[in-house]
């Protein structure tokens, strides 16, 4: 059998995205062993929403069998996904959920992702203390889901007070600057809930200020994990593996082969999501994570994905 799958990525501002594409392309090649030829067509560039809509339309023009997209907006693609569905194309979103009934989502639950690390932080603080949060881009749906996640968890702990929430736009330097300003004006904080690459920045600000008494969430790039183990930081990180697109691809190929999901994708706010497990790195399993990243470039993220067999097992 032969399938052509289009991969669309609308932002190239981080290594995570590059790794995501690379792993998906790897996964496609792996199907050759099963006697299936999966060809990928990749569109990956910094584009705005219209630009990514153009990605989808280009795929439709090319007549691909499936489109896997890391979308720049949750809702903006409803009409164009409908066009794709009309053309008989399977659409799978990954990394950020989409509202379209014509697509399914294969990826992690961003809210659950935030809940895990928030719970880790709250429990590490014994359920009491003041915390601050450093968030991504305001108004971005993944960010807002994560915010909802940590707010819910911290709400369960009456002793935990969120004293400030700021936006670092998923930029390491902005995260560092935000942390630095927070440290100056909230010297008494006990914990920091911070996302992704900004965590490295926040940690740096804390180290520069000599504040090793604060607990903060971490991130999953090798650079940070090295610092984490070298300095025995007190941290924990939920993993949003760049392998999500590879997982989505493995699911897509199964669907293209006409198989049915054992459990239909009905999770999430839009009722079209299939959630992947979220690994968690804490001091206990830090060694394993380090080992897994041994020899990789510093920007490599700790990853995991559904193997072909894992994915196939999800189908009848």
């Amino acid at each position, binding site marked *: 059998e032969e399938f052509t799958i289009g991969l669309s990525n609308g932002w190239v501002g981080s290594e995570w995205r590059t790794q995501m594409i690379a792993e998906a392309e790897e996964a496609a090649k792996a199907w050759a062993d099963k006697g299936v030829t999966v060809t990928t067509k990749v569109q990956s560039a910094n584009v705005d929403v219209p630009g990514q809509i153009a990605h989808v339309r280009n795929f439709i023009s090319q007549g691909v069998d499936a489109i896997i997209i890391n979308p720049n907006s949750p809702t903006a693609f409803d009409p164009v996904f409908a066009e794709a569905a009309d053309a008989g194309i399977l659409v799978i979103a990954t990394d950020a959920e989409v509202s379209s009934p014509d697509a399914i989502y294969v990826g992690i639950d961003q809210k659950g992702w935030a809940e895990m690390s928030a719970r880790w932080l709250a429990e590490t603080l014994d359920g009491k203390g003041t915390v601050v949060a450093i968030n991504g881009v305001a108004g971005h749906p993944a960010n807002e889901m994560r915010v909802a996640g940590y707010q819910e968890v911290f709400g369960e702990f009456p002793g935990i007070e969120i*004293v400030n929430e700021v936006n670092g736009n998923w930029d*390491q*330097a902005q995260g*560092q600057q935000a942390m630095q*300003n927070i440290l100056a*004006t909230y010297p008494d904080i006990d914990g920091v809930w911070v996302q992704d690459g900004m965590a490295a920045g926040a940690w740096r600000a804390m180290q520069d200020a000599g504040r090793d008494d604060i607990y903060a969430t971490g991130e999953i790039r090798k650079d940070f994990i090295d610092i984490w183990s070298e300095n025995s930081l007190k941290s924990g990180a939920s993993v949003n593996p760049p392998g999500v697109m590879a997982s989505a691809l493995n699911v897509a190929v199964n669907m293209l082969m006409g198989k049915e999901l054992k459990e239909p994708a009905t999770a999430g706010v839009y009722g079209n999501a299939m959630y992947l497990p979220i690994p968690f790195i804490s001091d206990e399993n830090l060694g394993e994570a380090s080992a897994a990243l041994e020899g990789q470039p510093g920007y490599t993220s700790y990853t995991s994905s559904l193997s072909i067999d894992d994915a196939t097992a999800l189908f009848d």
Partner: protein
Amino acid sequence: MSMATFRPILIAGGLVVALMIAGELVSPGFASPEQILRLSIVAALLGIVAAGQNLVILGGREGIDLSVGGVISLSALVAGNVMNGLDAGLLPAILACVAVGAIFGLLNGLGVTLLRIPPLVMTLGMLGVLQGLLVVARNGIPSGRAAPMLSDFVSQPQWLGLPGILWLWALIGLAMAGLLGRTVFGQRIFAIGANEPAARLAGVPTRLTRTMLYVLSGVFSAIAGLCILGYSGSSFANVGGQYMLSSIIAVVLGGTPLSGGRGGYTGTMIGALLLVVLQGLLTTLSIEESGRQIIFGSALIVLLLFYGRSSGMRV
């Protein structure tokens, strides 16, 4: 220095102090010595980028450099790889950075002077190219880490309790003042900014001078990229993104109008400080992001009302 050039500096300086006081009132600790030091470091990073931006703007003919962010990111990547966490690699890294900045500055300069592409367009196009180049480069090479010496230079107190980068910034401030006030090159910058054809007839190598401004802007961005690498420890994609518009704003807040031929760097340094303090203050306020944006946008507009408003047509 005449009053006309001095006034914006006074205003900006006054505003910095006012903001610090307001910050201390709203969130105690904002004006603590350590915090002032840390804000100054962030301002120095911006200020170094703004030095190049300032030169390009002074040179007139709608001079502007939108590619600074791309150069910063690329030079941070290159530097990180060359030094790769080792002090021994620092010197080669500095050289590599300067080369990167100079090359892209030169390309900008040639596009603007030889091909006569408007600077905004040329540097915007170059930014697109640089962003593409970064993706390619990152795919091929590891990201690298800052040497400990570089990190200490940027964030640890060194001489008289101040980190090296503040000394570097002060040095750049002095060098810029000397360049603009005491050298023939400086005078030529103002001349081409004020009236290029007349400057040409007065023996100014207009193309060479203007090209040099873009080269210098590239070099300053590259040095800033190196320092930002030291600041954040490791390089990451798009480190320089936030500097494009903020470097321009720092220049304008410092009293150099975008029309060129007039202004200086001392004001720009204060402008950078002003911008960083304002942003820092907003971060510490515990309000919704939409509120922060609304306040920041309005504050910028109000600040601009103090400066370089172009004169009316009826005199």
